[in-house]
C-alpha cells in the first residue's frame, strides 16, 4: 500500500463521513499522567473523563468541546472533578487541527478539604480517529498554584479511548516500529 493511496483513502473517508455530535469517554494513562508538585514527589494520576464534541469531523473554524465528566485520582489519594455548582464547568472549543481550548475549566479539588478552582485557558490536543469522525486520545497539561507546601503543581493528563480500534492502532504502531527496527538491523548487517 503506497503512502499516496493511504492519503487518498483518508481524504475520501473524511469527505464521506457526515459530521455528527459525539460523546466519548477517555481513560488516563497512569504512566503518562501525573501531578508534579514544585516541592515533593510526583504522583501518578488515573481516572476517566468524558467529552461531548459538537460535530465531528470538525468543519470550518471550530466546534464545541465540553468536558462533561471528570473523575481523576492521584496516587496520594487526592481527587479532581468538575465543580458541581457550575452549570457547564468544562465548556470549550475544538479546532480542526486537534487543538482545544477551555477558556475556564471549573474544577473541584479534594485532598482532605474541598477547593473549587477555576483554571483559565486550559489548552491541549486531541488525536482524531480515521476520517476525523472520532477521537482517539487527549493530552493536556496545566499548572495549579496550590500555595505552600506543594507550590506550583504541574498536572499532566494523557488519556485514550479504550476501544478495540484504538488498541489495534496502537498494536499496529508498535508492530511497525518493531518491523522498522528489524529492517534497520538487517540493513546494518
Amino acid at each position: 500500500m503506497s503512502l499516496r493511496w493511504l492519503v487518498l483513502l483518508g481524504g475520501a473517508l473524511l469527505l464521506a463521513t457526515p459530521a455528527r455530535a459525539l460523546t466519548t469517554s477517555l481513560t488516563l494513562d497512569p504512566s503518562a499522567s501525573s501531578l508534579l508538585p514544585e516541592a515533593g514527589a510526583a504522583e501518578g494520576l488515573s481516572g476517566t473523563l468524558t467529552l461531548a464534541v459538537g460535530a465531528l469531523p470538525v468543519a470550518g473554524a471550530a466546534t464545541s468541546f465540553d468536558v462533561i465528566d471528570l473523575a481523576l485520582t492521584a496516587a496520594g489519594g487526592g481527587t479532581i472533578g468538575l465543580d458541581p455548582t457550575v452549570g457547564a464547568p468544562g465548556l470549550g472549543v475544538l479546532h480542526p487541527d486537534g487543538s482545544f481550548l477551555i477558556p475556564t475549566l471549573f474544577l473541584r479539588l479534594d485532598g482532605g478539604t474541598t477547593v473549587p478552582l477555576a483554571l483559565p485557558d486550559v489548552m491541549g490536543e486531541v488525536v482524531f480517529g480515521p476520517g476525523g469522525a472520532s477521537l482517539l486520545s487527549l493530552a493536556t497539561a496545566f499548572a495549579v498554584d496550590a500555595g505552600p507546601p506543594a507550590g506550583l503543581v504541574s498536572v499532566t493528563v494523557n488519556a485514550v479511548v479504550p476501544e478495540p480500534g484504538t488498541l489495534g492502532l496502537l498494536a499496529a504502531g508498535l508492530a511497525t516500529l518493531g518491523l522498522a527496527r528489524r529492517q534497520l538491523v538487517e540493513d546494518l548487517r
Partner: protein
Amino acid sequence: MTSRRALALLALLASLVTGATVAQCPNGGPRAGALVQTLVTVPGYVEPHTPGSGGPLEISASANVQSLLGAHPDLNRVTYLRTAIQKPSGAPPRAILILVPGFLGGAATFAPLARQLVLAFNGNLEVWAIDRRPNQLEDERGARHALAGVMAASTPEQIFQALEEGARFYFAETPALDINLNGVVDPQFELPDANGVSRPWVRLSQDDMRFAAYWGIDTYMRDWKILVDQARSIVGPHGLVLFGGHSMGTSWASAFAAYDFDPDPGHVVSGHSLIDGLLLLEGGGLGAGASPPPTHDQYLAQVASLASPGGPDVTLSDFQGVEIPALGATSEISGIAGIHDPDAPALAQRTPLFGAGLLGIFFQAPASNRSMVGLFIDDDFEPVAAFRASAGFSSNGPNQFVAGLFGGPPFYIAGPSSSGVRTWQDFDDPDLPTCPPNDPTVSPGCAIQDLGPRPAPTDPPRNWGVEAEVTSLDDVLHVQFENGNFVEWYFVSGRVNLDFSYGRDSSALGDESLLALTQNASMDKPVLCIGGSHGLAPLESSFAGYLGSIATPPADQEIVLLEGYAHLDVILAHQNAAVPPIRDWVSGLLQRKLLGGL
C-alpha cells in the same frame, strides 16, 4: 510493499495515541495572584462645555471647583473601579464586565460582587465598575483625613479625634450637635484645598455645576464607549465585553445598548454592536418615557435654562428630604467610624443629617457607630426600598412598626435601648428573630419574614418568599469609603431626566447630535436579568417591558430571581447567589463567542 515513509507515519501516529506532550504553562490556582481593586481614571469624552475641554464653548470652572481640583481642572474624565487578578501567564482576561451603578450609587457599590465574580473566574473575567463623572467633584478631604488619622492612631482618643475632625470638616457644630463632645460649639475643621488654602468642606452649589447641563445621556454614553473600546482592545475579537448595571444602572446600561454613536442619521454604530451581552441587576432597563416627549425646541430651551445661573437644579439636591451631598459625606465618615470605632456612640447622630430633621426622627435611638449604619441600610429599618440590604437586625430595644412611608414598604423605627446604645446582630447570627413565631407588627418584630409564595410570572411585580439575610455589615461599612465610595454626592438629574423622558427611543427629538437613543428595537444581544424577590424587580414581569421592546430572541433572554434578596443584596451579599448564574452565563457566552456564534 510498505514504504519507509508510511512506516514512519504510522509510528508517529502510534506514539501520539500513547501520549502526546503539551507545553505546560501556569494556568492558575487558589493562590495564583492577589485580587486587586484599583480606581482607574482615563481621558473621557471631550464634552465641549465642560471645564478642561479647551474649546470656545467651555464654561470656566468656578472658584469652588478650582478649590477642589486646582486652577485648571479637566472634568472630561472617566473613572472606573477595576477588579482583576493577574493571570500567572500574563495573558489578558477573556471577558470584561462593565457595570453602571444605580441611583446615587458610586463604583464601590459593586466592590463585593466584583470580587466574587473575578475570583470565580480566577482572573479570566475582570469587572470594571463605573464612577460617573460627578464623583470627581466630591470633596473627600475630610474622609481621607479621618481615615489617615485612625490608621496612624495608637490610642482610642486619637481615633476619636481623627473621626470627629473628619465630621467637623463637613458639618458645623450647633449647641444641640456637639460633634466632638467637648461642650463647646467649635468652628468647622479646615484642611488645605487644592490651592493650599485651608477650608472646610467645599460643597458645590447648583451654579458651581452649570456645565452639568451638558452632562446628559450622550455625554455618559460616550464616556463609557471609551471604556468599552478599551475593554475590546484587551479581550480581542474572540473575547467578551459585557455591559450591565444595577437598579437605575440598568436603564443606563440598556441606554448604552440602544445608543447610536454615529451622529450621521444615515449611518449607525449601535451600542449593542460593541458588546456581547447585557446584564440587568435589580432593575427593568429603559422604561417607556413620557408621552408626549419634549419637542426639539422644548429640549433646547430646557438645556439653556439648566445652563443659566439661577436656573433649575442640574444635580439632585435632596431625596425625600435627605440632602444628598450631606448623605454622601456622612456615609464616608460613618463607614470609617463603623470599622475603626464600632462600639462608640454614633458620630453620625451628632451631625445635622441624623441628629436633626427627618432622619433625626427615624434614627433617634442612641446607636453605636456600627449599628447606626446597620439601622440605615437594613431592610427591616430603612424606609426606602432602593436603599435596602438584608444585613441583620437590632433587637436590644423596642422596634416601632410603621406600615410604610411615601408608598414604601413597612419598616421599624428603633427606639432607645435601656441597656445603652442599640447594637447590631449580624446577618449570620443564628438568633435573628423570625416571623412566625414573632408578629411583625409587635416589637421586636423580625428579621426574617415569609412574604408568601411566588406569584405567576405575568402577575404585577410584588415581593414574595422568605427573607434572606445575606449581606455583611462589615462589607457595607467598607464600601462607604473604599474603592471610591458608596454614594454619588452630586447626582446629575436635570439633563439626565430630560433625556430619559424619551424612554427607549429619542427619534422624536430628531437630533442625534443631542441624543441618539434610536437602536433599542434592534438590540439583539443576550440579556441576563437578575432580580431579588424582596427587591424592586421581584418577578419576571419586572423585566417584561424592556425584554419585549428588543430584538433579542427569547432563548437569549434569561431571568433569575433570588428569593429573599433585597435591592442592594444583589450587589452586596457576602456569598452572593447572583454569582453562579452570572458565571454560567458568561461561561456559555464565551464558548459561543469562540465559536463565532455571537
